[in-house]
């Protein structure tokens, strides 16, 4: 299947220029033989298509969790020149700033009790699933502040601590946000959902740090073996989806207006320096800010549950880091030994900046940025660190997890929610979901395990594993 492609050695593959007409740069992706055997050919073609886009720099890249997506493959990374490059919603995804955060607690596994009660209380404290609404209903003007201020809006309104902000990618706020480009519809959708988890593969999970593979980095990040942690995975909800839909419409016509020749309509884009491109970027940044505020509010509500149930201090629950895995950002990278500012699109890919980058919090700067890779229900999640190799090879990017392999229909046929619940319970994992159907649809067997994907990014040096975390309990919509 990958005959026309060149294996550069190890886990690196190249799509040579010419694989598809008008490629401006080669494509590059990272796969082990095992992952290569089952890779979706359509996703490789999508990556080659990305390489034809104007102003693309160095490579069209894909991480080992590459699979078919809207326009760009999921797991895709592409950097564009500010002079003649473009911005494309397909390179960001519908769930703008879908992301993950990891929080530690002072609890240790050996004295962690009341697990069932904890999960039940978390399920009540965090609005979850279809129809769930926030308890903090915002006015339109207040929501607009969320869109501009991101996680700091949440902290200023009592949802968390100032130090949380330092531990969010981009400080939990993109300053390019402008609400003038966010439709009224998007704002209306955002009002009832700010502080809600949603459904699908989003979750809040209680985990134990099971294996420490890099003692120095683990100590710096503040995580120890046996420590009870909490992971939150969600994004910008209906608001982000609406922003993407609205701007796709505009950008489809601007593709024609600016005479951009594309092999796939789903790659709709506009020059970075055009009013349509700037409008999408400003709206996307606003949706990204909403997602950071959303995760901040969810974390706060969950911290309160821990405080009430275990009597631990709120301040003792530290946010290690919050990463975005669907976003485009302006970043400085080395190209032909010159530092240049680029617009880096990451879609189902995580920023993984190495040591000494000013964007990494001061206390982590000698180590590299924390990277969080969630597992699926019942499987391991990982904490990694960014590397200098990632800066050279992938614009400081790594994988984001692993995608679905089974459709919801197949998953529901193969798995029964009640049986899964029992099986997980035998492994001492407590699950609380809105229904058994949700559990069946999100069965671990419906997803590729993250383990192999993480092993490949570690081998390629795009990030290095610091710790493996195992689930103890999870809430899902």
């Amino acid at each position, binding site marked *: 299947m990958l005959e026309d492609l060149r294996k550069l050695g190890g886990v690196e593959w190249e799509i040579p220029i010419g694989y598809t007409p008008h490629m401006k740069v080669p494509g590059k992706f990272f796969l082990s033989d095992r992952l290569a055997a089952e890779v979706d050919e359509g996703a490789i073609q999508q990556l080659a298509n990305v390489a034809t886009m104007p102003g693309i720099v160095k490579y069209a890249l894909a991480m080992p969790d590459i699979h078919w997506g*809207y326009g760009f493959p999921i797991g895709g990374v592409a950097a564009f020149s500010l002079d003649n490059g473009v911005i494309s919603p397909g390179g960001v995804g519908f769930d703008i700033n879908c992301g993950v955060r990891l929080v530690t607690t002072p609890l240790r596994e050996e004295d962690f009790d009341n697990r069932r009660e904890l999960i039940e209380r978390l399920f009540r404290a965090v609005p979850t*699933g*279809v*129809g769930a609404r926030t308890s903090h209903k915002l006015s339109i003007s207040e929501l607009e502040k969320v869109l501009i201020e991101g996680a700091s809006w949440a902290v200023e309104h009592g949802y968390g601590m100032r130090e949380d902000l330092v531990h969010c990618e981009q400080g939990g706020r993109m300053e390019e946000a402008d609400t003038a480009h966010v439709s009224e519809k998007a704002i209306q*959708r955002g009002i*009832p959902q700010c502080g809600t988890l*949603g459904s699908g593969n989003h979750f809040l999970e209680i985990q134990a740090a099971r294996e420490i593979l890099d003692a120095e980095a683990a100590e710096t990040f503040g995580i120890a073996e046996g420590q009870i942690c909490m992971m939150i995975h969600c994004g910008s909800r209906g608001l982000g989806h609406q922003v993407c*839909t609205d701007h*796709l419409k505009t950008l489809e016509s601007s593709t024609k207006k600016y005479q951009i020749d594309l092999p796939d309509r789903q790659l709709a884009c506009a020059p970075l320096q055009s009013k349509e491109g700037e409008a999408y970027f400003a709206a996307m940044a606003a949706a990204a800010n909403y997602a950071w505020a959303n995760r901040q509010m969810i974390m706060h509500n969950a911290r309160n549950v821990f405080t009430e149930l275990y009597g631990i201090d709120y301040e003792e629950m530290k946010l290690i880091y919050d990463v975005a895995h669907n976003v485009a950002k302006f970043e400085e990278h080395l190209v032909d030994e010159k530092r240049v500012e680029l617009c880096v699109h990451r879609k189902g890919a995580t920023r993984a900046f190495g040591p000494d980058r000013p964007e990494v919090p001061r206390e982590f700067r000698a180590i590299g940025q924390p990277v969080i890779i969630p597992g699926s229900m019942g499987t391991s999640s990982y904490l990694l660190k960014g590397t200098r190799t990632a800066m050279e090879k992938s614009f400081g990017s790594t994988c984001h997890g692993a995608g679905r392999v089974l459709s*919801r229909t197949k998953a529901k046929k193969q798995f029964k929610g009640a049986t899964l619940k029992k099986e997980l319970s035998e492994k001492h994992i407590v699950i609380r979901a809105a229904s058994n159907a949700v559990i069946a649809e999100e069965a671990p067997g419906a997803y590729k395990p993250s383990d192999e994907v993480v092993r490949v990014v570690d081998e390629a040096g795009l990030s290095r594993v610091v710790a493996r975390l195992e689930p103890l309990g999870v809430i899902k919509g």
Partner: protein
Amino acid sequence: MPFTELEHTADILVRVSASSLEHLFAESANAMFSFMHEQREGRSVMRKLSLEAADMDALLHDFLSELLFMAEVDNLVFSDIEVSISGPTLQATVYGELFDPDVHAGGTEIKGISYYGLHIREDQDHRYRVEILFDV
């Protein structure tokens, strides 16, 4: 069954079939809401909407998007959908009730309707068919 679910790895893909455009639109909306809520019976709330679009494909897309928007923002669960279409204009009356977690929770959240592949066809037997991809 007026609709069938087709295989799709990431999202929900359905094929809807009906004897008229009006039924096709109503059944498409029923398909969408059936994934979100297993039970839909209440009729205590009534809403009307009127839409216009360049063609039938765009009209169906906008109709479903509008219903989804109303349900999400006003916290409603729609159970009964009546549609009339005249030229490029659609009029609809929808009945439903306020979302009640004890009755309506536990479904799959649909976030939007994809433009991708949404194309209404009229078969030789005068049945209308469409495939719709719901983003989850």
